[in-house]
Protein backbone atom coordinates (compact mmCIF):
# COMPACT_ATOMS: atom_id res chain seq x y z
CA UNK A 1 0.00 0.00 0.00
CA UNK A 2 2.78 2.36 0.90
CA UNK A 3 4.51 1.47 -2.35
CA UNK A 4 1.42 2.40 -4.32
CA UNK A 5 1.20 5.81 -2.72
CA UNK A 6 4.84 6.36 -3.51
CA UNK A 7 4.21 5.32 -7.09
CA UNK A 8 1.25 7.65 -7.50
CA UNK A 9 3.34 10.46 -6.10
CA UNK A 10 6.09 9.87 -8.68
CA UNK A 11 3.53 9.61 -11.44
CA UNK A 12 2.22 13.03 -10.54
CA UNK A 13 5.73 14.44 -10.87
CA UNK A 14 5.98 12.94 -14.33
CA UNK A 15 3.15 15.15 -15.62
CA UNK A 16 4.08 17.22 -18.63
CA UNK A 17 4.77 20.77 -17.53
CA UNK A 18 3.79 23.09 -20.34
CA UNK A 19 5.55 26.10 -18.97
CA UNK A 20 8.79 24.68 -17.74
CA UNK A 21 11.78 26.42 -19.27
CA UNK A 22 12.90 23.30 -21.03
CA UNK A 23 9.56 22.66 -22.68
CA UNK A 24 9.17 26.24 -23.86
CA UNK A 25 12.64 26.10 -25.33
CA UNK A 26 11.71 22.88 -27.11
CA UNK A 27 8.61 24.46 -28.60
CA UNK A 28 10.59 27.51 -29.61
CA UNK A 29 13.12 25.42 -31.48
CA UNK A 30 10.37 23.50 -33.21
CA UNK A 31 8.76 26.79 -34.19
CA UNK A 32 12.00 28.15 -35.64
CA UNK A 33 12.51 24.97 -37.65
CA UNK A 34 8.91 25.21 -38.84
CA UNK A 35 9.45 28.80 -40.01
CA UNK A 36 12.53 27.75 -41.99
CA UNK A 37 10.50 24.89 -43.46
CA UNK A 38 7.84 27.34 -44.62
CA UNK A 39 10.55 29.55 -46.15
CA UNK A 40 11.84 26.59 -48.12
CA UNK A 41 8.38 25.88 -49.52
CA UNK A 42 7.61 29.47 -50.52
CA UNK A 43 9.82 29.79 -53.64
CA UNK A 44 8.61 26.63 -55.38
CA UNK A 45 5.00 27.55 -54.66
CA UNK A 46 5.40 31.00 -56.14
CA UNK A 47 7.35 29.75 -59.15
CA UNK A 48 4.70 27.16 -59.95
CA UNK A 49 1.87 29.64 -59.43
CA UNK A 50 3.46 32.24 -61.70
CA UNK A 51 4.34 29.75 -64.42
CA UNK A 52 0.80 28.39 -64.30
CA UNK A 53 -0.90 31.78 -64.31
CA UNK A 54 1.35 33.79 -66.62
CA UNK A 55 2.10 30.90 -68.96
CA UNK A 56 -1.00 28.76 -68.69
CA UNK A 57 -3.53 31.52 -69.29
CA UNK A 58 -2.16 32.53 -72.66
CA UNK A 59 -2.00 29.02 -73.98
CA UNK A 60 -3.76 28.62 -77.31
CA UNK A 61 -3.54 26.56 -80.46
CA UNK A 62 -1.80 29.46 -82.21
CA UNK A 63 0.97 29.65 -79.67
CA UNK A 64 1.71 25.97 -79.91
CA UNK A 65 1.62 25.79 -83.70
CA UNK A 66 3.06 29.09 -84.94
CA UNK A 67 6.58 30.32 -85.49
CA UNK A 68 8.08 32.97 -83.21
CA UNK A 69 8.41 36.44 -84.67
CA UNK A 70 11.68 38.35 -84.47
CA UNK A 71 11.56 40.90 -81.64
CA UNK A 72 10.30 44.31 -82.59
CA UNK A 73 8.42 43.32 -85.76
CA UNK A 74 5.03 43.27 -84.19
CA UNK A 75 4.55 44.88 -80.82
CA UNK A 76 1.35 43.04 -79.99
CA UNK A 77 2.17 39.48 -80.85
CA UNK A 78 5.32 37.44 -80.72
CA UNK A 79 3.95 34.49 -82.65
CA UNK A 80 4.21 30.99 -81.24
CA UNK A 81 6.63 28.41 -80.03
CA UNK A 82 5.84 25.57 -82.45
CA UNK A 83 9.33 25.17 -83.81
CA UNK A 84 10.88 25.43 -80.36
CA UNK A 85 8.79 22.55 -79.03
CA UNK A 86 9.82 20.39 -81.98
CA UNK A 87 13.42 21.60 -81.66
CA UNK A 88 13.62 20.66 -77.98
CA UNK A 89 12.22 17.23 -78.77
CA UNK A 90 14.64 16.68 -81.68
CA UNK A 91 17.74 17.84 -79.79
CA UNK A 92 16.91 15.86 -76.66
CA UNK A 93 16.09 12.73 -78.66
CA UNK A 94 19.39 12.84 -80.52
CA UNK A 95 21.25 13.49 -77.27
CA UNK A 96 19.55 10.39 -75.83
CA UNK A 97 20.37 8.32 -78.92
CA UNK A 98 24.02 9.22 -78.43
CA UNK A 99 24.30 8.92 -74.67
CA UNK A 100 21.96 6.06 -73.77
CA UNK A 101 23.87 3.26 -75.53
CA UNK A 102 27.23 4.57 -74.34
CA UNK A 103 25.91 5.11 -70.83
CA UNK A 104 24.29 1.68 -70.52
CA UNK A 105 27.35 0.05 -72.07
CA UNK A 106 29.62 1.82 -69.64
CA UNK A 107 27.38 0.90 -66.71
CA UNK A 108 27.32 -2.76 -67.77
CA UNK A 109 31.10 -2.76 -68.00
CA UNK A 110 31.45 -1.28 -64.52
CA UNK A 111 28.94 -3.57 -62.85
CA UNK A 112 29.44 -6.85 -64.72
CA UNK A 113 32.84 -7.02 -66.37
CA UNK A 114 35.25 -4.91 -64.39
CA UNK A 115 37.04 -6.57 -61.51
CA UNK A 116 37.07 -3.52 -59.28
CA UNK A 117 40.61 -2.64 -60.28
CA UNK A 118 42.25 0.71 -60.72
CA UNK A 119 40.62 1.39 -64.09
CA UNK A 120 37.03 0.90 -62.95
CA UNK A 121 37.70 2.91 -59.78
CA UNK A 122 39.03 5.68 -61.96
CA UNK A 123 35.97 5.51 -64.24
CA UNK A 124 33.56 5.63 -61.27
CA UNK A 125 35.46 8.60 -59.93
CA UNK A 126 35.44 10.20 -63.38
CA UNK A 127 31.68 9.70 -63.65
CA UNK A 128 31.17 11.57 -60.40
CA UNK A 129 33.49 14.33 -61.51
CA UNK A 130 31.84 14.62 -64.93
CA UNK A 131 28.45 14.87 -63.22
CA UNK A 132 29.76 17.95 -61.42
CA UNK A 133 31.12 19.70 -64.51
CA UNK A 134 29.16 22.93 -65.03
CA UNK A 135 26.87 22.65 -68.04
CA UNK A 136 28.31 25.78 -69.63
CA UNK A 137 31.68 24.03 -69.81
CA UNK A 138 30.14 21.28 -71.95
CA UNK A 139 28.93 24.04 -74.28
CA UNK A 140 32.37 25.64 -74.42
CA UNK A 141 33.96 22.27 -75.15
CA UNK A 142 31.59 21.40 -78.01
CA UNK A 143 31.84 24.93 -79.38
CA UNK A 144 35.61 24.67 -79.53
CA UNK A 145 35.73 21.14 -80.92
CA UNK A 146 32.82 21.14 -83.35
CA UNK A 147 31.31 24.57 -83.93
CA UNK A 148 34.39 26.73 -84.39
CA UNK A 149 36.29 24.10 -86.36
CA UNK A 150 33.26 23.25 -88.57
CA UNK A 151 34.15 19.62 -88.06
CA UNK A 152 30.85 18.16 -89.27
CA UNK A 153 30.36 18.82 -92.98
CA UNK A 154 31.48 22.39 -92.62
CA UNK A 155 28.45 23.54 -90.67
CA UNK A 156 29.07 25.61 -87.58
CA UNK A 157 26.06 26.06 -85.30
CA UNK A 158 23.97 22.92 -85.57
CA UNK A 159 21.36 20.79 -83.86
CA UNK A 160 23.89 17.99 -83.77
CA UNK A 161 26.43 20.10 -81.87
CA UNK A 162 23.73 21.00 -79.34
CA UNK A 163 22.78 17.35 -78.95
CA UNK A 164 26.40 16.36 -78.39
CA UNK A 165 26.75 18.98 -75.66
CA UNK A 166 23.61 17.68 -73.96
CA UNK A 167 24.76 14.08 -74.25
CA UNK A 168 27.91 14.94 -72.29
CA UNK A 169 25.65 16.04 -69.45
CA UNK A 170 23.42 12.97 -69.68
CA UNK A 171 26.22 10.42 -69.79
CA UNK A 172 27.28 10.36 -66.11
CA UNK A 173 23.72 9.98 -64.80
CA UNK A 174 22.99 7.07 -67.13
CA UNK A 175 26.26 5.27 -66.34
CA UNK A 176 25.72 5.74 -62.63
CA UNK A 177 22.13 4.49 -62.54
CA UNK A 178 22.92 1.51 -64.81
CA UNK A 179 25.87 0.61 -62.62
CA UNK A 180 23.87 0.91 -59.42
CA UNK A 181 20.79 -0.80 -60.86
CA UNK A 182 22.84 -3.79 -61.97
CA UNK A 183 24.63 -4.02 -58.65
CA UNK A 184 21.26 -4.35 -56.92
CA UNK A 185 20.40 -7.45 -58.98
CA UNK A 186 20.90 -10.52 -56.82
CA UNK A 187 23.91 -12.67 -57.65
CA UNK A 188 21.74 -15.78 -57.41
CA UNK A 189 20.09 -14.81 -60.69
CA UNK A 190 23.49 -14.56 -62.39
CA UNK A 191 24.71 -17.86 -61.00
CA UNK A 192 21.44 -19.54 -61.96
CA UNK A 193 21.72 -18.35 -65.55
CA UNK A 194 25.38 -19.28 -65.83
CA UNK A 195 24.57 -22.61 -64.19
CA UNK A 196 22.14 -23.65 -66.89
CA UNK A 197 24.76 -22.92 -69.51
CA UNK A 198 24.06 -19.35 -70.59
CA UNK A 199 27.05 -17.34 -71.71
CA UNK A 200 27.97 -14.19 -69.86
CA UNK A 201 26.56 -12.06 -72.68
CA UNK A 202 23.23 -13.90 -72.68
CA UNK A 203 23.06 -13.67 -68.90
CA UNK A 204 23.45 -9.93 -69.04
CA UNK A 205 21.04 -9.26 -71.90
CA UNK A 206 18.35 -11.76 -70.86
CA UNK A 207 18.57 -11.87 -67.08
CA UNK A 208 20.34 -9.02 -65.33
CA UNK A 209 19.43 -6.12 -67.64
CA UNK A 210 15.68 -6.90 -67.55
CA UNK A 211 15.88 -7.26 -63.78
CA UNK A 212 17.45 -3.81 -63.48
CA UNK A 213 15.22 -2.31 -66.16
CA UNK A 214 13.18 0.04 -64.02
CA UNK A 215 16.16 1.56 -62.21
CA UNK A 216 17.87 2.19 -65.51
CA UNK A 217 14.71 3.59 -67.09
CA UNK A 218 14.26 5.98 -64.17
CA UNK A 219 17.84 7.18 -64.55
CA UNK A 220 17.42 7.70 -68.29
CA UNK A 221 14.15 9.60 -67.91
CA UNK A 222 15.59 11.86 -65.22
CA UNK A 223 18.63 12.63 -67.34
CA UNK A 224 16.40 13.33 -70.36
CA UNK A 225 14.35 15.70 -68.21
CA UNK A 226 17.50 17.45 -67.08
CA UNK A 227 18.84 17.74 -70.63
CA UNK A 228 15.56 19.09 -72.02
CA UNK A 229 15.66 21.95 -69.55
CA UNK A 230 19.30 22.84 -70.13
CA UNK A 231 20.08 26.14 -71.80
CA UNK A 232 23.72 26.89 -71.17
CA UNK A 233 25.15 24.17 -73.44
CA UNK A 234 22.79 25.17 -76.28
CA UNK A 235 23.20 28.92 -76.55
CA UNK A 236 26.36 28.73 -78.58
CA UNK A 237 26.07 25.27 -80.08
CA UNK A 238 22.51 24.84 -81.35
CA UNK A 239 21.86 28.59 -81.29
CA UNK A 240 18.28 29.51 -82.22
CA UNK A 241 16.14 29.64 -85.30
CA UNK A 242 12.96 31.45 -86.28
CA UNK A 243 12.00 28.78 -88.83
CA UNK A 244 10.69 25.25 -88.88
CA UNK A 245 13.35 22.58 -89.02
CA UNK A 246 13.10 21.26 -92.57
CA UNK A 247 15.02 19.76 -95.47
CA UNK A 248 17.49 16.90 -95.26
CA UNK A 249 20.04 18.87 -93.34
CA UNK A 250 17.97 19.52 -90.22
CA UNK A 251 20.74 18.34 -87.96
CA UNK A 252 23.39 20.51 -89.53
CA UNK A 253 21.52 23.76 -89.09
CA UNK A 254 20.82 25.90 -86.04
CA UNK A 255 17.68 24.78 -84.30
CA UNK A 256 15.24 26.45 -81.92
CA UNK A 257 14.62 25.11 -78.44
CA UNK A 258 12.25 26.10 -75.67
CA UNK A 259 14.97 26.88 -73.17
CA UNK A 260 16.94 29.13 -75.50
CA UNK A 261 13.72 30.84 -76.56
CA UNK A 262 12.95 31.61 -72.91
CA UNK A 263 16.47 32.98 -72.39
CA UNK A 264 16.49 35.13 -75.53
CA UNK A 265 12.97 36.46 -75.17
CA UNK A 266 13.16 37.10 -71.43
CA UNK A 267 15.94 39.61 -72.06
CA UNK A 268 14.09 41.42 -74.86
CA UNK A 269 12.64 44.82 -73.99
CA UNK A 270 9.35 43.95 -75.74
CA UNK A 271 6.43 42.79 -73.67
CA UNK A 272 5.02 40.46 -76.32
CA UNK A 273 8.29 38.50 -76.36
CA UNK A 274 8.39 38.33 -72.58
CA UNK A 275 4.88 36.93 -72.53
CA UNK A 276 5.87 34.28 -75.04
CA UNK A 277 8.78 33.33 -72.76
CA UNK A 278 6.24 32.66 -70.00
CA UNK A 279 4.15 30.51 -72.33
CA UNK A 280 7.26 28.56 -73.31
CA UNK A 281 8.15 28.10 -69.63
CA UNK A 282 4.72 26.68 -68.99
CA UNK A 283 5.08 24.11 -71.78
CA UNK A 284 8.65 23.26 -70.75
CA UNK A 285 7.81 22.87 -67.06
CA UNK A 286 4.81 20.69 -67.90
CA UNK A 287 6.96 18.47 -70.12
CA UNK A 288 9.62 18.11 -67.45
CA UNK A 289 7.15 17.49 -64.63
CA UNK A 290 5.48 14.78 -66.73
CA UNK A 291 8.86 13.12 -67.32
CA UNK A 292 9.69 13.35 -63.62
CA UNK A 293 6.37 11.88 -62.57
CA UNK A 294 6.72 8.98 -65.02
CA UNK A 295 10.28 8.40 -63.77
CA UNK A 296 9.06 8.38 -60.18
CA UNK A 297 6.27 5.92 -61.02
CA UNK A 298 8.71 3.54 -62.66
CA UNK A 299 11.07 3.91 -59.73
CA UNK A 300 8.27 3.07 -57.33
CA UNK A 301 7.41 -0.07 -59.29
CA UNK A 302 10.82 -1.50 -58.40
CA UNK A 303 10.34 -0.73 -54.75
CA UNK A 304 7.03 -2.58 -54.74
CA UNK A 305 8.49 -5.56 -56.59
CA UNK A 306 11.27 -5.82 -54.07
CA UNK A 307 9.01 -5.79 -51.07
CA UNK A 308 6.90 -8.63 -52.50
Amino acid at each position, binding site marked *: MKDRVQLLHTAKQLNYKTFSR*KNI*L*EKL*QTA*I*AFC*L*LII*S*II*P*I*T*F*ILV*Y*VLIKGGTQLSIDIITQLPEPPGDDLLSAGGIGNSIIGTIIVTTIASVISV*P*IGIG*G*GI*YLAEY*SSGGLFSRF*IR*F*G*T*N*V*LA*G*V*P*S*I*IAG*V*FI*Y*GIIVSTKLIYGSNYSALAGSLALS*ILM*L*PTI*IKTTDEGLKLVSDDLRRGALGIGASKFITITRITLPAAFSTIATGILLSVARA*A*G*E*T*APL*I*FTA*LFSFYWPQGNEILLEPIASL*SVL*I*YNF*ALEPYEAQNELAWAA*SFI*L*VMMLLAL*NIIARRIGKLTMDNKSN
Partner: protein
Amino acid sequence: MASMVAIVLIGILAFIFYGSLESMARFGFKYLITSGWNPVSDEYGAFTAIYGTIITSLAALTISLPIGIATAIFITEDILPRKVNEFIGLMVELLAAIPSVVLGLWAIFVMEPFLRPFLILLNQTFSWLPFFGTEPRGPGMAPAIIILSIMILPIITSISRDSLNQVPKKLREASYGIGATRWTTIFHIILPAAISGITGGALLALGRAMGETMAVTMVIGNSFNFSWSLLAPGNTISAMLANQFGEADGSQISSLMYAALILMILTLSVNIFANWLVKRISLKY
Protein backbone atom coordinates in the same frame (compact mmCIF):
# COMPACT_ATOMS: atom_id res chain seq x y z
CA MET B 1 32.37 2.39 -73.62
CA ALA B 2 33.13 3.17 -70.03
CA SER B 3 36.32 4.80 -71.15
CA MET B 4 34.19 7.41 -72.98
CA VAL B 5 33.84 9.08 -69.60
CA ALA B 6 37.57 9.30 -69.20
CA ILE B 7 38.03 10.44 -72.80
CA VAL B 8 35.41 13.18 -72.50
CA LEU B 9 36.67 14.36 -69.14
CA ILE B 10 40.31 14.44 -70.11
CA GLY B 11 39.31 15.89 -73.47
CA ILE B 12 37.49 18.77 -71.81
CA LEU B 13 40.37 19.48 -69.45
CA ALA B 14 43.01 19.23 -72.16
CA PHE B 15 41.00 21.31 -74.59
CA ILE B 16 40.30 24.10 -72.15
CA PHE B 17 43.87 24.07 -70.92
CA TYR B 18 45.20 24.18 -74.47
CA GLY B 19 42.79 26.97 -75.38
CA SER B 20 43.81 29.09 -72.44
CA LEU B 21 47.57 28.76 -73.02
CA GLU B 22 47.77 31.90 -75.13
CA SER B 23 45.99 34.03 -72.58
CA MET B 24 47.91 32.43 -69.76
CA ALA B 25 51.20 33.33 -71.42
CA ARG B 26 50.08 36.89 -72.01
CA PHE B 27 48.43 37.76 -68.73
CA GLY B 28 49.69 35.08 -66.38
CA PHE B 29 48.75 35.47 -62.77
CA LYS B 30 47.76 39.10 -63.35
CA TYR B 31 44.60 37.85 -65.07
CA LEU B 32 43.27 36.66 -61.74
CA ILE B 33 43.65 39.96 -59.91
CA THR B 34 42.84 42.65 -62.48
CA SER B 35 39.32 43.47 -63.49
CA GLY B 36 39.41 45.19 -66.88
CA TRP B 37 37.64 43.48 -69.76
CA ASN B 38 38.22 45.30 -72.98
CA PRO B 39 38.02 43.46 -76.30
CA VAL B 40 39.02 46.64 -78.17
CA SER B 41 42.37 47.10 -76.49
CA ASP B 42 42.68 43.34 -75.90
CA GLU B 43 43.11 43.66 -72.15
CA TYR B 44 41.46 41.04 -70.02
CA GLY B 45 41.25 40.41 -66.31
CA ALA B 46 38.75 38.16 -64.62
CA PHE B 47 38.83 39.38 -61.05
CA THR B 48 35.24 40.70 -61.15
CA ALA B 49 33.99 37.35 -62.39
CA ILE B 50 36.06 35.29 -59.98
CA TYR B 51 34.98 37.45 -57.06
CA GLY B 52 31.37 37.17 -58.26
CA THR B 53 31.53 33.40 -58.60
CA ILE B 54 32.99 32.86 -55.15
CA ILE B 55 30.91 35.47 -53.32
CA THR B 56 27.55 34.56 -54.89
CA SER B 57 28.00 30.84 -54.30
CA LEU B 58 29.26 31.23 -50.73
CA ALA B 59 26.50 33.69 -49.84
CA ALA B 60 23.87 31.44 -51.43
CA LEU B 61 25.20 28.53 -49.40
CA THR B 62 25.10 30.57 -46.19
CA ILE B 63 21.45 31.41 -46.83
CA SER B 64 20.19 28.02 -47.87
CA LEU B 65 22.24 25.84 -45.51
CA PRO B 66 20.23 26.61 -42.34
CA ILE B 67 16.94 26.52 -44.25
CA GLY B 68 17.79 23.26 -45.97
CA ILE B 69 19.04 21.52 -42.83
CA ALA B 70 16.08 22.72 -40.77
CA THR B 71 13.70 21.43 -43.43
CA ALA B 72 15.49 18.10 -43.51
CA ILE B 73 15.38 17.80 -39.71
CA PHE B 74 11.73 18.74 -39.63
CA ILE B 75 10.66 16.17 -42.19
CA THR B 76 12.75 13.38 -40.69
CA GLU B 77 11.28 13.98 -37.24
CA ASP B 78 7.72 12.92 -36.43
CA ILE B 79 6.39 16.41 -35.71
CA LEU B 80 4.01 16.42 -38.65
CA PRO B 81 2.07 13.47 -40.05
CA ARG B 82 4.04 11.36 -42.48
CA LYS B 83 1.89 12.30 -45.47
CA VAL B 84 2.65 15.99 -44.92
CA ASN B 85 6.36 15.25 -44.64
CA GLU B 86 6.29 13.31 -47.89
CA PHE B 87 4.44 16.13 -49.58
CA ILE B 88 6.99 18.71 -48.43
CA GLY B 89 9.82 16.46 -49.58
CA LEU B 90 8.13 16.18 -52.97
CA MET B 91 7.72 19.95 -53.25
CA VAL B 92 11.39 20.53 -52.53
CA GLU B 93 12.36 17.92 -55.10
CA LEU B 94 10.02 19.48 -57.64
CA LEU B 95 12.10 22.61 -57.29
CA ALA B 96 15.07 20.60 -58.57
CA ALA B 97 13.10 19.70 -61.69
CA ILE B 98 12.44 23.31 -62.70
CA PRO B 99 14.96 24.33 -65.37
CA SER B 100 17.28 27.14 -64.39
CA VAL B 101 16.19 29.33 -67.30
CA VAL B 102 12.62 29.29 -65.97
CA LEU B 103 13.93 30.25 -62.54
CA GLY B 104 15.82 33.06 -64.24
CA LEU B 105 12.68 34.27 -65.97
CA TRP B 106 10.83 34.23 -62.65
CA ALA B 107 13.73 36.01 -60.99
CA ILE B 108 13.72 38.84 -63.53
CA PHE B 109 10.01 39.53 -63.57
CA VAL B 110 8.77 38.49 -60.14
CA MET B 111 11.51 38.09 -57.56
CA GLU B 112 13.73 41.06 -58.38
CA PRO B 113 10.95 43.71 -58.33
CA PHE B 114 9.65 42.16 -55.12
CA LEU B 115 13.07 42.20 -53.48
CA ARG B 116 14.04 45.71 -54.50
CA PRO B 117 12.38 47.60 -51.63
CA PHE B 118 14.14 45.31 -49.14
CA LEU B 119 17.47 45.80 -50.87
CA ILE B 120 16.98 49.58 -50.88
CA LEU B 121 16.25 49.39 -47.17
CA LEU B 122 19.40 47.31 -46.71
CA ASN B 123 21.37 49.95 -48.59
CA GLN B 124 19.97 52.80 -46.52
CA THR B 125 20.60 51.09 -43.21
CA PHE B 126 24.01 49.58 -43.88
CA SER B 127 25.47 51.91 -46.49
CA TRP B 128 28.64 52.24 -44.40
CA LEU B 129 29.41 48.58 -45.11
CA PRO B 130 31.20 48.09 -48.44
CA PHE B 131 28.95 45.09 -49.19
CA PHE B 132 25.84 47.26 -49.24
CA GLY B 133 27.46 50.47 -50.42
CA THR B 134 25.63 51.08 -53.68
CA GLU B 135 22.04 51.80 -54.48
CA PRO B 136 20.26 48.78 -55.99
CA ARG B 137 19.07 49.36 -59.56
CA GLY B 138 17.48 46.21 -60.89
CA PRO B 139 19.93 43.47 -61.72
CA GLY B 140 22.79 42.82 -59.35
CA MET B 141 24.61 40.31 -57.21
CA ALA B 142 21.96 40.19 -54.48
CA PRO B 143 19.13 38.84 -56.69
CA ALA B 144 21.64 36.36 -58.12
CA ILE B 145 22.50 35.19 -54.61
CA ILE B 146 18.84 34.71 -53.74
CA ILE B 147 18.00 32.77 -56.89
CA LEU B 148 21.12 30.62 -56.39
CA SER B 149 20.12 29.84 -52.83
CA ILE B 150 16.71 28.76 -54.10
CA MET B 151 18.37 26.54 -56.69
CA ILE B 152 20.69 24.72 -54.30
CA LEU B 153 18.05 24.26 -51.61
CA PRO B 154 16.81 20.89 -53.00
CA ILE B 155 20.35 19.45 -53.05
CA ILE B 156 21.03 20.43 -49.46
CA THR B 157 17.62 19.27 -48.25
CA SER B 158 17.63 15.90 -49.96
CA ILE B 159 21.21 14.99 -49.06
CA SER B 160 20.72 16.13 -45.45
CA ARG B 161 17.52 14.13 -45.28
CA ASP B 162 19.26 11.02 -46.57
CA SER B 163 22.11 11.31 -44.11
CA LEU B 164 19.73 12.02 -41.21
CA ASN B 165 17.75 8.92 -42.16
CA GLN B 166 20.95 6.88 -42.14
CA VAL B 167 21.60 7.61 -38.48
CA PRO B 168 20.72 4.38 -36.64
CA LYS B 169 17.47 4.47 -34.66
CA LYS B 170 19.29 3.06 -31.64
CA LEU B 171 21.17 6.31 -31.11
CA ARG B 172 17.95 8.29 -30.92
CA GLU B 173 16.25 5.77 -28.64
CA ALA B 174 19.21 5.68 -26.30
CA SER B 175 19.23 9.45 -26.13
CA TYR B 176 15.51 9.65 -25.36
CA GLY B 177 16.00 6.84 -22.87
CA ILE B 178 18.41 8.82 -20.72
CA GLY B 179 15.99 11.73 -20.65
CA ALA B 180 17.19 13.99 -23.42
CA THR B 181 14.57 16.15 -25.11
CA ARG B 182 13.92 16.18 -28.83
CA TRP B 183 16.16 19.10 -29.71
CA THR B 184 18.91 18.06 -27.33
CA THR B 185 18.91 14.75 -29.16
CA ILE B 186 18.98 16.47 -32.52
CA PHE B 187 21.81 18.83 -31.70
CA HIS B 188 23.95 16.50 -29.63
CA ILE B 189 23.34 13.08 -31.14
CA ILE B 190 21.75 13.09 -34.56
CA LEU B 191 23.38 16.07 -36.25
CA PRO B 192 26.91 15.11 -35.15
CA ALA B 193 26.32 11.59 -36.46
CA ALA B 194 25.16 12.90 -39.84
CA ILE B 195 27.51 15.83 -40.09
CA SER B 196 29.92 14.53 -42.71
CA GLY B 197 27.07 13.61 -45.06
CA ILE B 198 25.53 17.03 -44.60
CA THR B 199 28.88 18.73 -45.19
CA GLY B 200 29.35 16.68 -48.33
CA GLY B 201 25.91 17.76 -49.53
CA ALA B 202 26.69 21.37 -48.78
CA LEU B 203 29.89 21.14 -50.80
CA LEU B 204 28.09 19.52 -53.73
CA ALA B 205 25.62 22.40 -53.57
CA LEU B 206 28.50 24.86 -53.53
CA GLY B 207 29.96 23.25 -56.64
CA ARG B 208 26.58 23.44 -58.31
CA ALA B 209 26.19 27.10 -57.37
CA MET B 210 29.59 27.95 -58.80
CA GLY B 211 28.82 26.40 -62.15
CA GLU B 212 25.22 27.59 -62.40
CA THR B 213 24.80 29.75 -65.45
CA MET B 214 21.42 30.71 -66.79
CA ALA B 215 19.51 32.07 -63.84
CA VAL B 216 22.57 33.98 -62.70
CA THR B 217 23.29 35.49 -66.12
CA MET B 218 19.73 36.72 -66.31
CA VAL B 219 19.76 38.66 -63.05
CA ILE B 220 23.34 39.54 -62.21
CA GLY B 221 23.70 42.44 -64.64
CA ASN B 222 26.87 41.20 -66.37
CA SER B 223 29.02 44.16 -65.50
CA PHE B 224 32.80 44.11 -65.67
CA ASN B 225 33.23 47.03 -63.33
CA PHE B 226 34.41 45.73 -60.05
CA SER B 227 32.49 46.67 -56.93
CA TRP B 228 32.59 45.21 -53.44
CA SER B 229 28.89 45.87 -53.13
CA LEU B 230 26.44 43.00 -53.39
CA LEU B 231 23.77 45.40 -54.56
CA ALA B 232 25.71 46.47 -57.65
CA PRO B 233 25.65 44.55 -60.93
CA GLY B 234 28.42 42.00 -61.10
CA ASN B 235 29.48 38.96 -63.02
CA THR B 236 30.38 35.32 -62.58
CA ILE B 237 32.65 33.18 -64.69
CA SER B 238 29.80 31.12 -66.06
CA ALA B 239 27.67 34.20 -66.79
CA MET B 240 30.62 35.75 -68.59
CA LEU B 241 31.06 32.61 -70.70
CA ALA B 242 27.37 32.52 -71.57
CA ASN B 243 27.38 36.14 -72.66
CA GLN B 244 30.63 36.46 -74.47
CA PHE B 245 31.59 33.13 -75.88
CA GLY B 246 29.29 33.16 -78.88
CA GLU B 247 30.64 36.42 -80.24
CA ALA B 248 34.23 36.19 -79.10
CA ASP B 249 37.23 35.67 -81.31
CA GLY B 250 41.01 35.55 -81.12
CA SER B 251 42.57 36.36 -77.81
CA GLN B 252 39.18 36.97 -76.23
CA ILE B 253 38.33 33.29 -76.74
CA SER B 254 41.60 32.34 -75.14
CA SER B 255 40.87 34.61 -72.18
CA LEU B 256 37.41 33.08 -71.81
CA MET B 257 38.99 29.63 -71.91
CA TYR B 258 41.31 30.72 -69.13
CA ALA B 259 38.26 31.75 -67.11
CA ALA B 260 36.60 28.41 -67.93
CA LEU B 261 39.73 26.63 -66.71
CA ILE B 262 39.53 28.49 -63.40
CA LEU B 263 35.86 27.63 -63.07
CA MET B 264 36.63 24.00 -63.88
CA ILE B 265 39.39 23.85 -61.24
CA LEU B 266 37.14 25.48 -58.63
CA THR B 267 34.17 23.16 -59.21
CA LEU B 268 36.32 20.05 -59.62
CA SER B 269 38.14 20.54 -56.34
CA VAL B 270 34.91 21.27 -54.46
CA ASN B 271 33.19 18.25 -56.04
CA ILE B 272 36.04 15.84 -55.44
CA PHE B 273 36.25 16.88 -51.81
CA ALA B 274 32.46 16.51 -51.49
CA ASN B 275 32.45 13.03 -53.00
CA TRP B 276 35.21 11.99 -50.67
CA LEU B 277 33.23 13.24 -47.66
CA VAL B 278 30.00 11.56 -48.77
CA LYS B 279 31.87 8.30 -49.28
CA ARG B 280 33.30 8.52 -45.80
CA ILE B 281 29.93 8.70 -44.11
CA SER B 282 28.45 5.82 -46.07
CA LEU B 283 31.23 3.60 -44.71
CA LYS B 284 30.54 4.57 -41.13
CA TYR B 285 27.21 2.91 -40.49
